[in-house]
């Protein structure tokens, strides 16, 4: 209860609403939550949330089960159909589509009518005009780089593609690689494609491609790959990246063998853990490529949902409202908690070098739009085939034609169903 009081004192405007929440309806029974926040810091956040919610509702028994984040990705479907709890974690946009289509996620549009400050992320939770979950956190993507090495080489944060390439040449000349990446589990290559395509062709084009409205063999898609190929041909990426997971690629940056990493903000914590100080690492927005193309960003949103088969939907709805409220959002996304961005516009962003930059970028310098991520914006099967093709392209850029034909064939089949 102490943390919520601190939060109340801090956010005077919202204290009224928060108090109303605390005195909300009398909830009884059991609230079963299955969460995928299995890493140490997020786990603590989730446990704290469950505990606080239980204290607010003395007659309610909150049962929390935390499942390994990777395992949950394949096992949510079994849980939803076999033994649905009352609240689960998942992801926004296309990633929730199969469960919405199978009527396994509850329509929570009524919850959205009662909450404020979430307009910017509403689209990602909306399918056919209804909302099927609430967000609890999101995080920016961008280029994390070794500030100390940039200084040593006399480099500035690039703003254009030409500067990016020129910087990379200097880095390569110094005997280092420009970018570390581990593509064993494929999605990291999806991040690169998202940015290159959004910068080359814009956000709307990218989303149209995700919806299957544009052929993979389109010349504009080819231009994206041509830009990518510039970097590949320079030797900008570390060797053998197809062998590494994203974590296994971290040491290259920590040891200074590579200077930058296009990643989500969750990479900051392990970098700090590995001994890099905030003077050594910094962040910049992925530079512009095409002229007059509004900047757009990847900012994946993680979410809470109510399974359609939940038993205590009343308590679950209250929990969803509780999680998105401004002060709770401020609290759980702090640098020492999740270390990510709050979804509620009325929340405060923690004083953290990376969170502040990310928040500024997403709120002021992302006029084109905010994408979820390759594997959340594309339908599941297209995402899997697509990312495999992207990995192949990064290793064998000469195979591009073959890859594009294959993806185009898949596109025609997948979106037809």
């Amino acid at each position, binding site marked *: 209860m102490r943390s919520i009081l601190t939060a109340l004192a801090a956010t005077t405007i919202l204290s009224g609403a928060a108090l109303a929440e605390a005195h909300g309806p009398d909830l009884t029974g059991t609230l079963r939550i299955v969460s995928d926040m299995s890493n140490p810091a997020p786990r603590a956040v989730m446990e704290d949330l469950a505990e606080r919610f239980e204290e607010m509702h003395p007659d309610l028994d909150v049962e929390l089960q*935390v499942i*390994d984040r990777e395992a949950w990705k394949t*096992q949510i479907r079994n849980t939803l*159909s*076999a033994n649905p709890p009352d609240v689960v974690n998942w992801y926004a946009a296309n990633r929730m589509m199969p469960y919405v289509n199978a009527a396994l996620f509850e329509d929570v549009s009524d919850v959205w009518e009662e909450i404020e400050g979430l307009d910017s992320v509403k689209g990602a939770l909306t399918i056919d005009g209804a909302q099927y979950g609430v967000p609890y956190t999101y995080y920016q993507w961008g280029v994390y780089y070794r500030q100390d090495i940039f200084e040593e080489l006399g480099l500035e944060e690039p703003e254009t593609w030409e500067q990016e390439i020129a910087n990379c040449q200097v880095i390569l000349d110094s005997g280092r690689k420009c970018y570390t990446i581990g593509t064993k589990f494929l999605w990291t290559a999806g991040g690169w494609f998202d940015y290159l395509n959004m910068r080359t062709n814009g956000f709307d084009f990218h989303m149209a491609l995700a919806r299957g409205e544009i052929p993979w063999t389109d010349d504009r898609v080819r231009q994206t790959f041509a830009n990518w190929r510039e970097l590949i041909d320079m030797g900008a990426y570390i060797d053998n990246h197809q062998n590494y997971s994203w974590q296994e690629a971290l*040491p290259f940056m920590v*040891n200074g063998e590579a200077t930058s990493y296009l990643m989500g903000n969750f990479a900051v914590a392990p970098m700090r853990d590995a001994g890099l100080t905030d003077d050594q690492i910094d962040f910049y927005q992925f530079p512009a490529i095409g002229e007059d193309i509004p900047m757009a960003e990847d900012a994946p949103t993680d979410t809470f949902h109510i399974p359609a088969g939940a038993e205590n939907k009343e308590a679950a709805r209250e929990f969803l409202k509780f999680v998105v409220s401004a002060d709770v959002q401020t609290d759980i996304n702090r640098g020492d908690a999740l270390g990510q961005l709050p979804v509620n516009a009325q929340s405060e962003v923690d004083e953290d070098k990376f969170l502040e930059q990310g928040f500024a970028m997403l709120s002021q310098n992302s006029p084109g739009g905010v994408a979820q991520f390759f594997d959340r914006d594309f339908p599941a099967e297209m995402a899997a085939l697509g990312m495999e093709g992207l990995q192949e392209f990064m290793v064998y850029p000469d195979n591009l034609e073959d890859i594009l034909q294959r993806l185009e064939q898949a596109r025609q089949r997948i979106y037809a169903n």
Partner: protein
Amino acid sequence: MFPTPIQKRSPAAQIAYQSMLPLALLLWLLPLLAVMAFSARPDADFTTGNYWGWPSSFEGVANYTLVFTSEMPRYLLNSFLITIPTVIGTIALSCMTGFALGIYRFRGNILIFFMFIAGNFVPFQILMVPVRDLTIDLNLYDTRAGLILFHIAFQTGFCTLFMRNFIRQLPFPLIEAARVEGVAEWRIFVYVVLPLMKPAIAALSVLVFTFIWNDYFWAIVLTQGPDTQPVTAGITSFNSQFRAAYHLMSAGSIVAALPPVAMFFLMQRHFIAGLTLGAVK
């Protein structure tokens, strides 16, 4: 004896053979020795790229302590709680089926026997989708019981083959004598046949224990999370939990391998009998 006993060869050949033995063994177990070496290294060695040089310090105790304070003990416990009931269930069922198929002559005997053998040879992935659905329908998804029931069913095929062949080699007059004395059939099973099957039971227990302990596929299809998953699935979640922590994963792998290895060394005779007896006859 083939090849010619080394004692009958020249002293030079004997010395060559004696010195080749340890060398060959070293080569054979090289990948494993490497992992043992990994498990005693500090984390720092891996980030600085010192994989094979002299370790900067010996962290074996610390690494294994970390392994035992993680989720690992829970996974190990699950492995035991899955493996032991499976062994008991499988042995019980296959003693009965083996007895029925080995002693009695009836229409369909060979058909049922072949059904067990054929089912046992099936690439078990074909069962994946229906068995998962069945387990969900029985409300046993993500429970140890769900995994145990499937394992018992599948292993029964292999064990029936083994038991039936073993029982066929028992002296049949013993059973006939019992029958003449009017002993009920189930008493013949319990008091005459079962005691004679002890070696087969021992061999199969060791074998099934190893198979089930090492199962990975069904563990990831039918269970999730540290509450139910066995250690084989646990090691890989170790993988994501500690980012690329080779030293800890190595230590974890070794811990996970220990029970079947101990089982093997303690029960070696039964183990080898199990591998060869039922099959080779």
